[in-house]
C-alpha cells in the first residue's frame, strides 16, 4: 500500500515537473524543475522498473550464494555491504564522459539532451549495467568478452574484444584532446595540471613506503596539495618569468600528454596510477556532492532556449541532425557500453545478495546520469552567446574575436567582445574564445554555480579548480585506459606469438604500450592540428563506438535472457538494443555516406583534396591538409568497421536466439550451479560478511 502511494506521489511530481519543463517554452526555466523531474524519474525507475526486472526477469534469489560468499578469499571475492559496493561501483563508472557529452549536446538546447539523459538511463543504461552485473555475478565474475564467447560463440567473443580495444583508443584520444584544449595557452591550467603529476608520485611513495596502505591519510594530504596547486597556478600565471614556461600551443601540449601516457603505462601502478586514482575518486565524489548542493542553493535560471535552430543539423560544435546525433553525443550520461566492462569486472565479486544488483547496478547508473543532468545545467545557465563563443572552433566562426561575435550574434545569440574579455579576466584566462572540448565551458558554468553559492570573489580560483578536477579525472582515465589497452594488445598478439602474452615481461610491456599509445596519440595529435578543433570529429566517433559497445553488451544480455527465460522478458534488453542499433547505424551511415563535407568523413576528405588541388586553402591549412585528408578517410573506414562489428554481434545473437526458440542446440553458457547461501537475510554488515564480523565472534 505504502509503495503504491509513494509511486503515485512520485509520478504526480514527475509529471508536474516534466510538464513544467515542456510547457514553459517562451520564458526561461529554473534548473530546479529539471532537478526535481530527474530525481522523481530515477526514483520511479528504481522503485518499480528495476524491482520488477530483478524479481521477474532475472529471478534474483537471495537464498542463492553469490560468488563473493562461495569463493570468499578476503581480497577480490569478498561479500560486502551493498552501500559499500555501490560506492565502489559508482567511483568506477563515473568518468568525464557525462560531463563532456551533455555540454556538447547543449547546442541543440537544454530539452533534447535532458530528455534523453533521463529516458535513456532509466530504460537503457541503468538496465544494461544492472543486468550485465547480474549475469556476470551468476558466472563467477566473468568479463563481457568471456560471456560473449561462452554464450554466443567465438565470433561474438572476438568482436567484443576488438570493439573494446578500438573504443579505448578513441576514448583516450578524445579525452586527451579535452585536456589539451583546456591547457592551451593557459599557464594557470597547465601548471596546475603539471603539478598533479609530482603530487600523485609523492602520494604513491607515501602509500607504498612511508605509511603503507593508509589510503585515507594519503588521499587527504594529496587533495590538500592539489588545492594548493590551484592557488600556486594563479601565482605562476601572474609571474612574468614563470608564465612563459607554461604557456604553450596545442601541439607541444599534446606531445606532452602522449609522452606522459606512455610513461604512465610502463611505470609500476603504485607510483602514478593508483595514487592518482585515489585523489581523483575523492575529488569526484566531493565535487559531485558539492555541485548538487550548490545547484539547489543557486537554483539558476537556464538561459539557453529549450530547442535551438541547430536541431536541423547545422550546429557549430558538431554537424548532424538531432536524430541521431543527440543520442550519440550524450552517450555516457544515458547509456555507456563501457560500464558493461566494469559491471563484469571487480564489482560482481563483491555482491553479497543477488538482489543487491538493483542498488549497485541500477542505482549507480542513475546517479551517474544525474551527473550528466548537472553538466547540462552548468552548460545551459551560461548566456547562449557565451556558450557558443567558448565552444565553437576558430575554423567555424573565424579566428578574430570580432568575426566570432558577429557570426554568433547573427545566429540569434548576442555576445560582445567586451563581455568575453570581462569573463576571461574574471576567470583568470587570457581568452575564452574557441576553447573547444567542453571543459572550459563546463568550468565557467561550475565556477558560476560555486561562485554564486559559496563566494563570488574567487571566480578565477573556482574556474581553475574545475579545470584541475576535470584534468585529474581525465588523466586517470588516460592512465587506466592505456594500461587496459596494453593488456588487450598483449592478449591479442600473445595468441599469435606466445611470449607477448606474459604481461610482466618488459619487452612485451614496451611493445604493447608503444602500440596503444601510438594509436590514441595519433588521433589526439590530428585533433589538435585540426583548425575546427578536432572535437567535432572525435566526439561523434567516440559516441558511435561507445554505443556500439553498449549494443554488444545488450546483445549478450538478450541472448542469455532468451535462453534462460521466455522471449517476452528479453524485451527489457532487446528494446534498448533495437533503439541503440538504429541510432548507431543511422549515425554511422551518415558519417560514411553523407555528401556534406561537414558531416561525412569521405565527403570531407574529397572536399579538402579538391580545395588543396585548386590552391584554395591558405598556407597554414594547406600544410596540414594531407594529414587531415588521410585522417578523414581513416575515420570513415573506422566507422565502417564499427558498423560491421556491431551487426556481426547482433547477427550472432539473433542466430542463438532463433536456435534457442526453435529448441536447437545452443552454447550451454557458464552459469554457476545453485548453492544455498549460509548468510542470513540481512545482507552483511559494513565490514564485509564473514571477515571482520566472524573474527570478532
Amino acid at each position: 500500500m505504502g509503495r503504491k502511494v509513494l509511486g503515485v506521489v512520485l509520478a504526480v511530481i514527475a509529471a508536474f515537473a516534466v510538464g513544467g519543463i515542456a510547457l514553459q517554452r517562451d520564458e526561461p526555466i529554473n534548473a530546479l524543475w529539471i532537478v526535481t523531474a530527474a530525481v522523481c524519474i530515477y526514483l520511479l525507475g528504481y522503485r518499480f522498473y528495476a524491482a520488477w526486472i530483478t524479481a521477474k526477469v532475472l529471478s534474483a534469489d537471495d537464498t542463492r550464494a553469490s560468488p563473493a560468499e562461495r569463493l570468499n578469499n578476503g581480497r577480490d571475492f569478498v561479500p560486502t555491504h551493498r552501500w559499500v559496493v555501490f560506492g565502489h561501483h559508482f567511483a568506477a563508472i563515473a568518468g568525464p564522459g557525462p560531463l563532456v557529452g551533455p555540454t556538447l549536446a547543449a547546442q541543440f538546447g537544454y530539452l533534447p539532451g535532458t530528455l534523453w539523459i533521463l529516458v535513456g538511463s532509466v530504460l537503457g543504461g541503468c538496465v544494461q549495467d544492472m543486468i550485465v552485473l547480474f549475469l556476470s555475478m551468476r558466472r563467477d565474475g566473468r568479463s563481457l568478452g568471456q560471456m560473449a564467447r561462452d554464450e554466443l560463440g567465438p565470433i561474438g567473443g572476438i568482436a567484443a574484444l576488438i570493439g573494446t580495444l578500438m573504443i579505448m583508443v578513441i576514448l583516450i584520444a578524445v579525452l586527451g584532446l579535452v585536456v589539451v584544449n583546456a591547457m592551451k595557452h593557459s599557464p594557470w591550467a597547465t601548471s596546475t595540471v603539471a603539478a598533479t603529476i609530482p603530487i600523485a608520485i609523492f602520494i604513491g611513495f607515501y602509500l607504498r613506503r612511508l605509511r603503507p596502505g593508509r589510503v585515507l591519510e594519503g588521499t587527504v594530504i594529496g587533495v590538500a596539495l592539489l588545492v594548493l596547486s590551484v592557488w600556486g597556478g594563479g601565482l605562476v600565471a601572474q609571474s612574468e618569468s614563470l608564465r612563459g614556461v607554461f604557456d604553450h600551443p596545442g601541439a607541444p601540449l599534446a606531445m606532452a600528454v602522449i609522452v606522459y601516457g606512455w610513461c604512465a603505462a610502463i611505470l609500476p601502478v603504485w607510483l602514478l596510477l593508483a595514487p592518482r586514482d585515489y585523489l581523483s575518486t575523492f575529488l569526484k565524489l566531493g565535487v559531485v556532492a558539492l555541485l548538487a548542493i550548490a545547484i539547489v542553493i543557486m537554483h539558476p535560471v537556464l538561459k539557453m532556449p529549450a530547442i535551438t535552430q541547430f536541431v536541423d543539423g547545422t550546429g557549430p560544435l558538431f554537424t548532424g541532425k538531432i536524430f541521431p546525433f543527440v543520442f550519440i553525443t550524450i552517450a555516457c550520461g544515458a547509456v555507456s557500453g563501457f560500464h558493461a566492462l566494469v559491471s563484469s569486472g571487480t564489482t560482481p565479486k563483491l555482491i553479497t545478495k543477488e538482489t543487491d544488483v538493483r542498488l549497485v547496478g541500477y542505482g549507480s547508473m542513475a546517479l551517474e546520469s544525474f551527473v550528466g543532468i548537472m553538466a547540462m545545467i552548468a552548460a545551459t545557465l551560461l548566456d547562449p552567446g557565451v556558450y557558443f563563443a567558448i565552444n565553437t572552433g576558430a575554423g567555424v566562426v573565424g579566428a578574430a574575436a570580432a568575426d566570432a561575435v558577429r557570426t554568433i550574434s547573427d545566429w540569434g545569440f548576442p555576445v560582445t567582445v567586451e563581455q568575453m574579455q570581462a569573463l576571461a579576466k574574471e576567470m583568470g584566462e587570457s581568452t575564452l574564445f574557441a576553447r573547444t572540448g567542453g571543459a572550459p565551458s563546463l568550468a565557467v558554468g561550475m565556477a558560476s554555480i560555486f561562485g554564486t553559492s559559496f563566494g563570488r570573489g574567487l571566480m578565477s580560483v573556482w574556474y581553475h579548480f574545475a579545470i584541475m578536477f576535470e584534468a585529474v579525472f581525465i588523466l586517470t582515465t588516460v592512465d587506466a585506459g592505456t594500461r587496459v589497452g596494453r593488456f588487450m594488445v598483449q592478449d591479442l598478439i600473445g595468441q599469435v606469438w606466445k611470449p607477448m602474452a606474459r604481461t610482466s615481461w618488459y619487452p612485451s610491456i614496451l611493445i604493447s604500450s608503444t602500440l596503444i599509445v601510438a594509436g590514441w596519440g595519433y588521433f589526439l595529435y590530428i585533433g589538435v592540428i585540426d583548425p575546427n578543433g578536432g572535437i567535432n570529429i572525435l566526439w561523434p566517433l567516440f559516441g558511435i563506438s561507445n554505443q556500439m559497445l553498449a549494443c554488444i553488451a545488450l546483445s549478450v544480455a538478450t541472448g542469455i535472457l532468451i535462453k534462460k527465460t521466455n522471449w517476452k522478458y528479453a524485451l527489457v534488453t532487446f528494446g534498448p538494443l533495437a533503439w541503440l542499433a538504429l541510432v548507431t547505424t543511422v549515425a554511422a551511415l551518415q558519417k560514411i555516406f553523407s555528401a556534406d563535407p561537414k558531416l561525412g568523413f569521405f565527403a570531407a576528405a574529397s572536399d579538402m583534396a579538391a580545395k588543396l588541388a585548386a590552391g584554395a586553402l591558405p598556407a597554414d591549412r594547406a600544410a596540414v591538409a594531407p594529414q587531415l585528408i588521410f585522417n578523414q578517410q581513416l575515420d570513415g573506414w573506422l566507422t565502417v568497421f564499427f558498423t560491421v562489428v556491431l551487426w556481426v554481434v547482433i547477427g550472432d545473437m539473433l542466430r542463438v536466439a532463433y536456435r534457442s526458440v526453435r529448441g536447437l542446440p545452443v552454447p550451454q553458457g557458464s552459469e554457476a550451479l545453485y548453492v544455498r547461501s549460509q548468510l542470513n537475510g540481512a545482507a552483511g554488515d559494513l565490514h564485509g560478511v564473514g571477515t571482520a564480523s566472524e573474527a570478532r565472534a
Partner: protein
Amino acid sequence: MRQAIAAAKTVWECVRTVSGDNAYERYLAHHAQAHRGTVPLTRREFYAQMTEQKWSGVSRCC
C-alpha cells in the same frame, strides 16, 4: 547522543571500506578465520598485491 555517535561510526567505517583504508584489517580478520596457523602478509606486501590486482583489469571508465 549515543545513537548519533553510533551512526557516525557506521558512516566512518563505510568511508574506510569504500576507500580501501581498512582493507588490511579486513584481510587479517579473514586470514585469522580462514587460514588459521599460517603467516599473513605484512601490511606492505598486502597493499602491493591489492594495488597490482586492482589495476590488472578494467576498473575505471569514461
